[in-house]
């Protein structure tokens, strides 16, 4: 059983956060080991397993990026050790930004950090614009393999931006 089935939700990149939380809380109650202390050992361990499954499901589905990763894994689009190649243009751009970051690390410059921050925000938006319609309209039975491939490319490119953003946040924290 996958996490979407467990929560009786359609496989979708876009979920209502409140609803996911509600499903999690319902199942937390339903499978809570405290309610089964007088049951047989086998049932106790089953409930414990379901509780753990529930925690994992909530972790995976409650966040947009993790949910995207989960769906892509479910659909065998991403796997560990796969050497996925992004376009050279994109890598070049990321190289340039990372080099800019290195310079900022050596010499702190608030104005430059702010410029970079804006640039990265713009890139996040542009990136999502490219796939937003595919992501939002995704339906398991309707969407194609090529749709998933585009989302996969987005997923990997976003990782670069997230990492850059993380560095920028670290700078901000130290300034």
């Amino acid at each position, binding site marked *: 059983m996958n996490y979407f089935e467990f929560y009786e939700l359609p496989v979708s990149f876009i979920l209502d956060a409140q609803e996911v939380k509600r499903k999690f809380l319902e199942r937390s109650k339903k499978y809570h080991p405290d309610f089964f202390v007088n049951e047989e050992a086998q049932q106790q361990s089953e409930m414990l397993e379901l509780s753990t499954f529930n925690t994992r499901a909530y972790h995976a589905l409650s966040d947009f990026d993790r949910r995207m990763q989960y769906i892509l894994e479910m659909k065998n689009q991403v796997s560990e050790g796969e050497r996925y190649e992004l376009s*050279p243009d994109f*890598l070049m751009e990321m190289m340039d930004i990372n*080099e800019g970051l290195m310079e900022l690390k050596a010499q702190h410059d608030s104005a430059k950090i702010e410029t970079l921050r804006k640039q990265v925000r713009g890139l996040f938006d542009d990136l999502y614009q490219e796939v937003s319609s595919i992501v939002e309209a995704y339906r398991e039975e309707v969407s194609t393999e090529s749709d998933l491939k585009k989302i996969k490319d987005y997923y990997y490119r976003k990782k*670069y931006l997230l990492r850059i953003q993380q560095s920028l946040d670290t700078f901000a924290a130290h300034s």
Partner: protein
Amino acid sequence: MAYSEKVLEHYEHPKNVGTLDKSKTNVGTGLVGAPECGDVMRLQIEVDPATQTIIDAKFKTFGCGSAIASASLATEWLKGRSLDDAATLDNMDIVEEPSCLL
């Protein structure tokens, strides 16, 4: 498996970090990404056109220790090699380098 001293040395004091002038016609630039961790590496070589030999090699990466160490090692190795010789280098050579178990 623990990292060997040689790998640690390349990680702590990487050699050949930097940039070659890519506007030069005898400088070649390669870029490769590691999308799982949002990392990118650039490796450049400068070739002597007369002898078809690599006279300089530089790299830059923002990645993890093993990426830094193996790139540092690779650039060391590339320098002074002929292009034909260098073309035979593959990642297993780095892994199998004596006393360099990554």
